[in-house]
C-alpha cells in the first residue's frame, strides 16, 4: 500500500455494491482514507454532519438523489472539494459537468484513472 505525501480523504458515492467495493479498495490501495455512501442524499447528510473530504467520487444514476442533483447541492452548500463524476452514462456528461464537477471519468474506474484525478486534488495546507 502506498502512503501519499499528504493525508488525502475521499468519499465514494455509489448505489452499486460492486462499485462501492472496487472504488473503496482502489482508494485503500493508494493509502487514501475513504468512506462510502449509497446515494446523493447520504453524501449531503455526511457533509451536514460536519465531515469534509478532499475528493468525492460521484456516481450519476442513484436512487433517492442522483449525482447531478447532489453535486449541485454540495456546490450550493459551499463545498469546494474536488468532485469527480464517475459514470457509464455519457449522454448526461455535459449536464453532470455543469452541475459542478471538476473531472469526469467513465466507468470502470481503474488505478490509472484515479491517479489522474488525484493529480488535480489540491490539499489545503
Amino acid at each position, binding site marked *: *500500500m502506498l502512503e501519499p505525501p499528504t493525508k488525502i480523504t475521499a468519499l465514494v458515492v455509489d*448505489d*452499486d*455494491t*460492486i*462499485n462501492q*467495493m*472496487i472504488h473503496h*479498495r*482502489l482508494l485503500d*490501495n493508494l493509502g487514501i482514507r475513504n468512506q462510502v455512501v449509497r446515494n446523493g442524499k447520504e453524501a449531503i447528510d455526511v457533509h451536514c454532519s460536519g465531515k469534509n473530504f478532499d475528493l468525492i467520487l460521484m456516481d450519476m*444514476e442513484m436512487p433517492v438523489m442522483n449525482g447531478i442533483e447532489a453535486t449541485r447541492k454540495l456546490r450550493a452548500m459551499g463545498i469546494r472539494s474536488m468532485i469527480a463524476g464517475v459514470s*457509464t*452514462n455519457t449522454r448526461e456528461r455535459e449536464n453532470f459537468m455543469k452541475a459542478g464537477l471538476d473531472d469526469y471519468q467513465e*466507468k*470502470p*474506474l*481503474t*488505478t490509472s484513472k484515479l491517479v489522474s484525478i488525484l493529480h488535480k486534488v489540491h490539499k489545503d495546507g
Partner: protein
Amino acid sequence: MLGLGVDRLRADMNRLLALLFHQGVLDEQFLQLQQLQDESSPNFVSEVVNIYFHESEKLLRNLRGLLMDKEFSDYKKIGIHLNQFMGSSSSIGAKRVRNVCVAFRAASEQNNRAGWVFESIGAARA
C-alpha cells in the same frame, strides 16, 4: 504433494481465464480486479464476483418480471436495471454481459420510441 495440487489448480485456473479472455467473456478490467487482491484482502476477487452473481440474479429476475407483464410499457424501468447491470459488469470485466446489456438497452429504447410514436399518433387522431 499439497503444493503440487495448488500449482496444478493455479495452472488450470490460468488456462480457464485465458480461454475466457480469448472468447471475449472477460476483458482487462478483470485483471484490474485481480490486482486489487493482496495479503490484506486475499479473497477480494471471489467476494466481488460472488456479490456480482447474487446482484445479477436479482436484476435478471426484475427484468424477467417486467417483460413477462402483458401490460408492460415502462421502458424507463428496464433502462434503470440495465444501466445498473451494465455498470457492475463493466467494473468486474464481464465484457460479454456488458455488451449484451448495451444491445438490450438499445433495443428497449427502440421499442420505447415506437410506443411513443404510436401514442402520439393516437393522441393526434383523437
